[in-house]
Structure formats: C-alpha cells, structure tokens
C-alpha cells in the first residue's frame, strides 16, 4: 500500500487531505511568534485536556539547535517527528561545516520533508503548523511551516485556534524597531486576548532567542515577572 499517494487532486483542483491537515492544525492551541529588532519571541498556550495531566512533564516549545527553537499547533506526535528530522539536519550541517545552520536553510529542509509527505505513497500529511524562531549570522528570523509544505517568513504571526484574531491584534501593534523586551509583552498580550480562562505563568510557555544565538524557554518565575509588569 506504499505504491500510490493518498493525497490526490479533487475534481475542483484541491488537495483535500492537505486542507484537512490545515484544519487539524488550526484546531490546536494558539501559538504566537514575534520578530523584534534584536531577537524573536515564541509563546504558546498550554492547557492540558485533563487536570490530572502532569503539565511539568512536557514542553511544547523545543530547541531544534542551539540557536533555533520551535513550537507547534496541532498534533503533538507529528511535531515530534518533524522536530527530530530538523534536529538531525541541523547537526549534520554542523558536522559538515562547523557552523550553525542558517534558519532559512533549516526551515526550507523541514518544509521539504512536510511536502514529501503530501506526495509520497502510503503516508498522510503532517497535522501541524510549526513556528520556528532563530538567530543566525543573518539576524533574527521567524518562520512558519504549513502542513502543505509551504513556508513563510513572518514579522509576526499566530497559528492554531485563535489565528485570525491574534493576527489582527498583532497587525495593529507590530513595529519594525520593536525591542525584544517590548516584543515579549506584546506577545503575551496577544496570547491573552484569545485565552480561555485566566492566563498565568503556569498555563503558557515562552521561548526567546537574542543576538547571543541561544534559544531558551523562560522559567515560570520569569514569565510571572513579565505578566506582573503588564498587569
């Protein structure tokens, strides 16, 4: 059953499997990305489906390489697969060139893998949209990778449930010369807009990367400080 693709054109010229995959991704928890003048921020909701889930046992925002991180909206297991492939690509590059991989390169290769799964035999498309934030020799970058395999570089964007409202919120507040500290505040505000219930440092995750080229997730205490600042 690996001889033929499961993603085929409809009579209207659409690839329905990809559209359904996009739908699956858009049902995921909202994630926001914002590129500042001197860094990039990622933030995501983290509301486990059941209060018995140990929310400290998993993190949604992950490092791909030292200088690049990613977050997703959609199916977590699909994200894990992409993450692993992206990590390997980044390390193969490092081995070959002894230099950190450029974000554009990394995203292009990952998007290529996503596209292959829309055309290869016996597989289904990935049900995740991925936001990658990185800082390389070329400066800060924010990329989105769709289940279709399309990838875009953004100044600011949102994926998941609250995409539409979050993006219009960001459009009003985005400035080209935003500093990272302000960008973090703006991102948190945007996330709060569509948040169901009360947003605290416990039910969100935030990741940043600056010119030091180290992508890190903020601790609960650090997030709390930012939230208190804006309150």
């Amino acid at each position, binding site marked *: 059953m690996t001889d033929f693709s499961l993603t085929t054109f409809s009579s209207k010229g659409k690839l329905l499997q990809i559209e359904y995959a996009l739908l699956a991704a858009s049902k995921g928890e909202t994630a926001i990305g914002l590129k500042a003048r001197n860094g990039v921020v990622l933030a995501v909701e983290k509301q486990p489906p059941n209060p018995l889930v140990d929310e400290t046992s998993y993190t949604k925002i992950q490092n791909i390489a030292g200088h690049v991180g990613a977050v997703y909206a959609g199916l977590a297991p699909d994200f894990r697969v992409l993450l692993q492939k992206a990590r390997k690509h980044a390390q193969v590059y490092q081995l070959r*060139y002894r*230099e950190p991989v*450029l974000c554009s*390169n990394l995203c292009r290769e990952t998007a290529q893998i996503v596209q292959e799964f829309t055309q290869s035999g016996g597989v289904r498309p990935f049900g995740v949209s991925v936001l990658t934030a990185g800082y390389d020799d070329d400066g800060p970058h924010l990329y989105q990778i769709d289940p279709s395999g399309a990838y875009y570089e953004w100044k600011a964007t949102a994926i998941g449930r609250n995409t539409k409202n979050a993006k219009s919120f960001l459009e009003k507040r985005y400035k080209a010369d935003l500093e990272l500290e302000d960008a973090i505040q703006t991102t948190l505000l945007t996330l709060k807009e569509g948040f169901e219930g009360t947003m605290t440092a416990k039910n969100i995750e935030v990741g940043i990367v600056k010119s030091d080229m180290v992508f890190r997730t903020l601790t609960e205490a650090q997030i709390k400080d930012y939230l208190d600042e804006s309150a």
Partner: protein
Amino acid sequence: FLYFIVKSMSILELNGGACVAMAGEGCFVIASDNRLGEQFKTISMEVPKLNVVNDKVVMGLTGLRTDQQTFANLLEYEIKMYKLREQRDISGKALTALVAHTLYQARFGPWFVEPVIGSIDDEGKVYLCAMDLLGAPCEPEDYVCAGTCAEALHGMCESLWRPGLGPEELFEVVAQALLSSCDRDCLSGYGATVMIVTREKVTTRLVKGRKD
C-alpha cells in the same frame, strides 16, 4: 657492512608541486609552483595549483595531479551548491570543515591531495589552514605549507615570516620562501604563481624562477 637507507617513493611525489600561504596585516598571500612532472620528467611548466573559491578564499592543492583535479571539481560542485542554498559565499572556516570532512570520508581509499586554504573575512581577519590527505587540519596564525619541498618550506617560512607585513612586503617574503625551497627540490619549481588577497581584491602575479 654498509647500510643504505632508501626512501621509497610516495604517490604524493609522483607529480611534484608545492604550496605556501602566509598571513599579513589585513591580507594573506598564497602561492604555488608551476611544475607538473612524472618523477624526473617535466611535462609542463605552466601548472599552478591554486583554486580561487571566491573573493575571499583561495585554496591550493598539492599531491597527485589527477586527484588535485578531481578533488577540486568535487569541491567546486559542493561550493556552488552551498552558494545556491545559503545565498552567501562560503567562509574559510566552513570550507576547511567541508574539505576535511570530504577527505575523511575517503579514509580507507584517500584522495592523494594535501590542501592549503587561505581566507580573509570582512573585518580583515586572516584564517589559514593546511591539511594532510586524511583531513587533519592545522590552523596556525603565521603560515601554512604543503608539497614535495614542505620541509624546506617550513625552514624558509619560519625564518622569513614576521607579523604585521603588508601586501607588498608579504608578497616578497612568500615568493622568496617558495622559490628558494623549490630550488632545493627537483620535483617543484619553474617559477611561482602568487595571489595577494586583501579585502578589496585578489592580485595574481607570475614570478619567474629557475627553469630547472
């Protein structure tokens, strides 16, 4: 009893040739001899061993001529793909990593080349590297050399090199070091092809030497 210690020929000595690169103030100079031979027979006196990678990076390949050519072509492919993928020129350090990696991949059937790489970055900082045929790099601050007269080159370079030389002075130093070393080596010589690389430009000069 009389004992003779005879050194048997290494494949790296079939065609002859030598390369040297030195670091200067905001510049580097890389040079190679012009001889191609088959042991004692000279085939050509117009075969420099330098490959210009881009504006800021030059690589010299010594060793077996056929491997010099094939390896250079292989790298040209890799470098062009790098430029297309990355939308930028490859740096000296990245090239060194690439070359070392490619050489080691052939660990048990190696390329019989010993590369020398010289590069300068946008800030004028020089990076030099020499590797053996298996890709072991060494990245000294002053000079690198390779080839059939490597020992003589080391001697000349150690004596003649000093820090802070400008392009013209460094050119003289490199040319003299190479020419004098090649004079002591029957497998290298017939003049030198010298490239002076600064941030702004690459200047290539042909230095006339002894035609033997």
